[in-house]
């Protein structure tokens, strides 16, 4: 009997743990490039009267896959339009979406710039350790778009998310890489200006159901938007 009791207890515990904490709290699916700013976003949303939210941070592609597989969400934000379009085509968004902020890549270098990087062309140097995001993920797609007509990247690694790449640059294990300016700023990475990159941006796009409408509005023009601008994201018009 004790055994059956234990099994029953486990089943009940799983049911409790598996249930959504609070049905009234909007569940926000957001790309991992927003994860570093979770605490600031929480504060901004609560102080502006929209209230607390629950976050699910993951790569944009993974978020969309989870939604297609039936995950519940009230807000979806992706790090690029292509991923949003995939979600839209699969019918897991609530409308055609709105652009929230934009981000762009910067040429980030190891502390002290040991490789002597001066422009985007250095990404083609075989004597350097060069890192980019894999072309399967938004930051990698953007890197391809930004460098296509300029330089063939001689990559030593194609990271599966931008934060793994940032960590390796900050540790000095890579000489140079293309990361979002927000990640470079959060990690305190040294960056090299290059005009080509200024022209290539990615739009963060979002959609929400009525429960998440307030949160999405805040990301478009409210307190959450202000947090992102502070973090180095850019207005849609820039």
């Amino acid at each position, binding site marked *: 009997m004790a055994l059956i009791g*234990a099994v029953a207890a486990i089943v009940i515990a799983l049911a409790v743990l598996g249930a959504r904490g609070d049905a009234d709290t909007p569940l926000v699916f957001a790309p991992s490039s927003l994860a570093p700013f979770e605490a600031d976003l929480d504060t901004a949303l609560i102080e502006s009267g929209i209230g607390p939210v629950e976050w699910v941070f993951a790569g944009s*592609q*993974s978020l969309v*896959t989870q939604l297609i597989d039936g995950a519940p969400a009230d807000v979806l934000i992706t790090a690029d339009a292509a991923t949003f379009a995939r979600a839209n085509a699969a019918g897991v968004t609530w409308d055609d979406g709105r652009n929230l902020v934009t981000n762009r890549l910067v040429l980030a270098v190891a502390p002290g710039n040991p490789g002597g990087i001066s422009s985007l062309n250095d990404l083609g140097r075989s004597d350097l350790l060069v890192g980019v995001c894999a072309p*399967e993920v938004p930051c990698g797609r953007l890197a391809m778009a930004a460098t296509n007509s300029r330089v063939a990247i001689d990559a030593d690694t194609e990271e*599966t998310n931008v934060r793994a790449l940032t960590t390796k640059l900050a540790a000095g294990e890579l000489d140079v890489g293309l990361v979002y300016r927000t990640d470079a700023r959060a990690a305190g990475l040294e960056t090299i200006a290059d005009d080509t990159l200024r022209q290539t941006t990615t739009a963060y796009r979002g959609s929400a159901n009525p429960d998440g409408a307030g949160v999405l509005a805040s990301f478009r023009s409210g307190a959450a938007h202000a947090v992102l601008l502070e973090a180095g994201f850019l207005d849609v018009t820039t």
Partner: protein
Amino acid sequence: MKPPTARPSALLLIPAGAGLLLVAVPVIGLLQRAPWSSLLDRLTSDTVLDAIQVSVTVSVTAAIVAAGLGLPLAWLLARHDSRLATIVRAAVLVPMVLPPVVGGTALLFALGRRGLVGQWLDSWFGISLPFTTAGAVVAASFVALPFFVTTVEASLRQAGTDLEEAAAVTGAGPLTAFVTVTVPASRDAILAGLALAWARALGEFGATITFAGNLAGRTRTLPLEIFLALESDPESAIAVSVLLLSISFAVLIVLRGRWVSRG
């Protein structure tokens, strides 16, 4: 002694069945999504063949490294019961319980070109492990070593010291006794340890991508290929998963008995 009754065994069947379902249902879930008709095409694409080649090189080398370093380690642990041995055993087992990503980060901080040891490897010998196939081998060996050590240590313990003592009586030195008596006597356990270490190295993901990065033909192993394909081509990802699953399952079937009953 009362003979075992049916009642307690029926009670045991419930959690036992639930346990089996816990591991079996996800596998079935994967198999029912597999693109069976195009499986062969997907598994022979250039990217997958590249990943197979890297995976074979890395996992086989890592298993050999784990055995080469792990056999002496297992012997020392089996023959010593000091507090130091307890600490060493715990240290060797750490990669089993550590999240692999943490292991990879630790490797980066230790063996990276700016790392604790790596900076000397770099400046003295010009060796830099991250982002190389050798780095992927180091990452896979790191996670595979404890599987070899625990399997072989258990067997060495069970075998006891009688044979080694007999060898000593005949005048054999400790090293000779180890090579000529201990190792042959533990052959089954060593093979089982090799197979387990190899299977673990083959499935390694987190430490590899964190320490060795991800580049086709150099460090992109099958698990990394699966992870990337999940973003762009889920069907191919499942096809490669089925391949890995079949290999692992085959290894464990072959291991039956050797690993469990003969310890």
